[in-house]
């Protein structure tokens, strides 16, 4: 019994209700359970999903980079499907992060966007992996394009550590809430930490579910292509 056939029943039956339930609990935490933050008021509640959008995006790009590295090494199509699925889901969450950030920034900073180092690096990250998707879309199954895209995914994640350290390195204005103490812009109430962690679980489940759906789609696409080719040969 292959790993896929052991994982499939769990992924198809357990992940959708688990992700939905976790997301409902996360929404309850964000809108009912946590108190208003003292400085920013209700707008701060965007933070719980905004941060997790970015963590899910990073996870997608890390999966894509690891699978791309494995593809470049072993050349197995399963690794390529996983890489492509990781990038697609990663770009989705990255887009969510890039959209929710300015919505938070407008009432707090007084502007939708500023070329702060972290924001700039985040846009670069989105661009790198969007280029990956354009390459894959234009190159179809061309093995050379697939290899170029794999190299791009491996190199592309080098931007993530830069995003993480950019606030300290270039003294940007983006807040670093997670690493800051409670009295210096960090989470001031334990309920805020709980809401963040519950949202993290919800986003992790949603991420795994979407990754699985996309991986299965790419696997089936490839199987159909093989069958069509063989029918063509037999005709």
């Amino acid at each position: 019994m292959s790993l896929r056939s052991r994982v499939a029943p769990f992924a198809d039956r357990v992940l959708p209700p688990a992700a939905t339930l976790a997301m409902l609990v996360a929404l309850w935490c964000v809108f009912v359970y946590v108190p208003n933050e003292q400085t920013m008021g209700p707008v701060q509640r965007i933070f719980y999903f905004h941060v997790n959008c970015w963590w899910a995006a990073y996870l997608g790009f890390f999966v894509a980079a690891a699978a791309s590295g494995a593809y470049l090494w072993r050349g197995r199509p399963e690794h390529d499907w996983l890489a492509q699925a990781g990038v697609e889901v990663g770009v989705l969450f990255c887009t969510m992060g890039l959209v929710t950030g300015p919505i938070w920034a407008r009432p707090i900073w007084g502007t939708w966007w500023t070329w702060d180092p972290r924001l700039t690096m985040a846009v670069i990250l989105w661009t790198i992996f969007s280029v990956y998707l354009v390459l894959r879309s234009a190159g179809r199954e061309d093995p050379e394009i697939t290899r170029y895209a794999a190299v791009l995914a491996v190199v592309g994640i080098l931007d993530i550590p830069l995003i993480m350290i950019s606030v300290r390195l270039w003294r940007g204005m983006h807040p670093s809430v997670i690493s800051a103490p409670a009295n210096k812009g960090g989470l001031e109430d334990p309920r805020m930490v709980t809401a963040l962690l519950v949202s993290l679980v919800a986003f992790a489940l949603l991420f795994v579910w979407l990754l699985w759906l996309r991986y299965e789609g790419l696997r089936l696409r490839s199987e159909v292509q093989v069958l069509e080719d063989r029918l063509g040969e037999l005709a």
Partner: protein
Amino acid sequence: MTATPDHFWFLFSAYAAIWLLLALFLAHLGRRHRVLERELHALEERLRRPGDGNAAPLRE
């Protein structure tokens, strides 16, 4: 900072944007899935055609 109606509007917009993007992505996945289903049905039809006799060797 006092919460103004504006602040609730920004909060609503952020969460609406997340759900809208997620819905678009799922719709995109659904569309791809339907295309794949159509292709599978077309393949099945080709296999069922009398005289083809190629059902067995398709899978290794």
